[in-house]
């Protein structure tokens, strides 16, 4: 049994954990590249990353400075917007705090420790961080990546495979799929700021594995197929959807309400598994736009169909009311 509110917190804890991990990884890949490039070029690429992560509005609002490390700082240590690593870690921590009584103590303590470390870097202040040549934010990235790895380790090794786990893992994998599709978009086009295949693979933690299959200079099309359709890579959208389906199946026994997202996940998985991807990727923008919106709807479905019911009438309509056979005064 799990409270609807707790299910919601775990779903979001999973999503933010994946987000913190992905942003930290992208920033770390980008920072290495920045060091070897001209300032303007580097800045353009960083802006492209900001866009891929869906943070352009926040970027404009935050009035990010022009220093070479300002964009990195915006993505890592700026808590004025919810898309930075520090904000994502805080969201993980706040969501786990709500369920701290039901998750393994170590999971909470890892999240809390990571939050404390990230906050101490944040409290240095943007100007001071810039003066260190991005050193503080670079260290934060390392801390965050290590922290996220511990969190997923504890999650995998000590969480009971109950409903709470199902929601947290579904959240992670949905967020991962959404970000993969968005990152793939940033490899389309012809500008100097378009990410090449290797960069996309590095962003998604797939470079090493892909090199064995695709060689050293894979084209976008091959990378897209790899990241969307690979059956063994835990980073591919197909793999993620397969797992989401399994988790929704776990939940189905308890919650009939997951039937809708389950169907949606199945349909989307089948689209990737049996669809003619070569043909579909003939119009890559349209295909990615379709996948992006379908994944967003699926994520919203998992949330609303299980946890967002608040009025008693809705609850009654959906469920047989239990407790009648317990010999209580009614």
């Amino acid at each position: 049994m799990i409270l609807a509110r707790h299910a919601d917190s775990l779903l979001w804890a999973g999503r933010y954990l994946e987000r913190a991990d992905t942003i930290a990884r992208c920033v770390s890949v980008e920072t290495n590249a920045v060091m070897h490039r001209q300032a303007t070029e580097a800045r353009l690429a960083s802006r492209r990353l900001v866009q891929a992560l869906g943070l352009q509005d926040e970027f404009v609002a935050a009035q990010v400075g022009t220093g070479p490390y300002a964009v990195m700082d915006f993505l890592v240590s700026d808590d004025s917007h919810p898309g930075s690593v520090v904000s994502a870690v805080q969201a993980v921590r706040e969501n786990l705090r709500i369920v701290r009584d039901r998750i393994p103590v170590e999971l909470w303590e890892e999240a809390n420790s990571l939050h404390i470390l990230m906050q101490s870097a944040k409290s240095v202040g943007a100007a001071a961080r810039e003066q260190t040549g991005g050193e503080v934010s670079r260290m934060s990235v390392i801390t965050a990546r290590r922290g996220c790895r511990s969190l997923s380790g504890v999650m995998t090794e000590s969480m009971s495979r109950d409903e709470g786990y199902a929601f947290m893992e579904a959240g992670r994998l949905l967020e991962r799929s959404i970000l993969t599709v968005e990152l793939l978009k940033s490899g389309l086009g012809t500008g100097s700021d378009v990410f090449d295949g290797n960069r996309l693979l590095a962003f998604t933690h797939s470079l090493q594995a892909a090199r064995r299959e695709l060689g050293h200079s894979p084209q976008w099309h091959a990378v897209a197929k790899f990241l969307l359709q690979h059956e063994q890579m835990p980073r591919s959208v197909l793999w993620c959807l397969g797992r989401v389906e399994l988790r929704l199946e776990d939940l189905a026994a308890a919650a009939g309400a997951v039937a809708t997202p389950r169907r949606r996940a199945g349909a989307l998985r089948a689209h990737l598994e049996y669809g003619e991807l070569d043909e579909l990727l003939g119009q890559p923008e349209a295909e990615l736009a379709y996948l992006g919106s379908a994944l967003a709807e699926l994520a919203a479905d998992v949330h609303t169909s299980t946890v967002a019911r608040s009025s008693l009438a809705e609850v009654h309509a959906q469920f047989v009311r239990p407790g009648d056979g317990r010999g209580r005064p009614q």
Partner: protein
Amino acid sequence: MAELRRSDANQLAYDEAFDRDGNVRPLYAAIVERFSNFDAAELRRREGIIEEEFRRQGITFTVYGDSQGTERTWPMDLFPRLIAATEWQEIERGLAQRVTALNRFLADIYTGEGAAMADGVVPAWLVQSSDGFERNAFGVSVPHDAHCVIAGIDLVRDAEGQYRVLEDNLRNPSGISYVIENRAAMTRAFPRVWEDHTVEPVSQYGRMLRTALESVAPTGAGDKPLIVILTPGIYNSAYFEHAFLAREMGVELVEGPDLVVDEHVVYLRTIEGLVPVDVIYRRIDDTFLDPVSFRPDSTLGVPGLLGAMRAGTVTVCNAVGNGVADDKAIHPYVTDLIRYYLGEEPILPNVETYVMWEPDQREAAFERLDELVIKPVGESGGYGIVIGRNATDEELANARAEIEADPRNWVVQEVVELSTLASMCDDVLEPRHLDLRPFVITGERTQVFPGGLTRVAMRKGSLIVNSSQGGGSKDTWVLAPQGSQT
């Protein structure tokens, strides 16, 4: 080695570790010996370990009035408080006796005949005029008459070392989580101090409380009742404790909106739909519990909860209306209530308290107001208290006028010189004042949890031990009886 200062020879208060001649009391001989092997830097280092651990684990309380929602750790002093086995047995008996009588009193008021009032043990008007007296609780019976499942009784030691009851907390006493976490921290920071003592364990609280809560479930609940803890949420100062208790008991931690009442049954909103709830250990005050019956603006509570309680489908712990029995104005009558209900002499005396609506007591108090403590009954947390010996003539005259204007609202107490114990202050161990809050659990029977929360005033001479006012806490050891194995 760190300097361990004895209490002044002319200190009025009882010192727990040293007698009046400055000799170590036998109870503390081994621990004083241990601590004299550490220098100040070493003690500071270990203090750092504990602070860091508390922060990492999120053992914190939220500071109110701080928009940042700042979470702070509550300092634990390194030097433990010890209670000898024989001394504890006496306290234990006294507390069980007291809480048993208080539960009888609550049952008498709300579901009984009002016998104590009819027989003149406590004036009926005093009971009915109490802020904690709750008409909504009339006729709501609780299994085993356990109106107060969890009580925290504040004890102090007077100048002779006698334990006395300062206050009863029968509504939402907090602090138990610190008792358990302090022990864990002490174990990490001083792994070897346990070699000299056999100390009663404190890890069984979750099991003990759960058993008690199961025992008060409504009769229709079956043998595996569903228990929840109702918290105001993560911004409440005691949220850590609520989560801690849910984890220790293995029950759900819920907020008001997670519960819904339909046809006098309380349900939990889960992803599977509605699941009926049997026992609610609530950590929110009476007035926020049910917007239908109390404050309509409360968003923390559950509409219709009182109706469900009255229908007997759910047990709410502690029961509604307990505030009448821990009213400061009722406190002076508790010893008589023990005699009345149990036919026994009270084992633990009260702090001597005078009621201002009795003309004799009032006149006697007015004679020597400058030696006494004047307390408003409606306040808590030390607000509005006038300490006679520190007050100006004008303040005393004002207090006197206020008492005459509304005698129901005041009590006057003898000053208690809270006992002292060595505590870490600026690199030396110095005596500081402390109190003790043991926890008493009532289900089928009344049990006292070993030890309790020792709070210590970290400022020299201060008698204020509250966490909000710079107080700390100490690990509290009840020593096992000699020859026993724990």
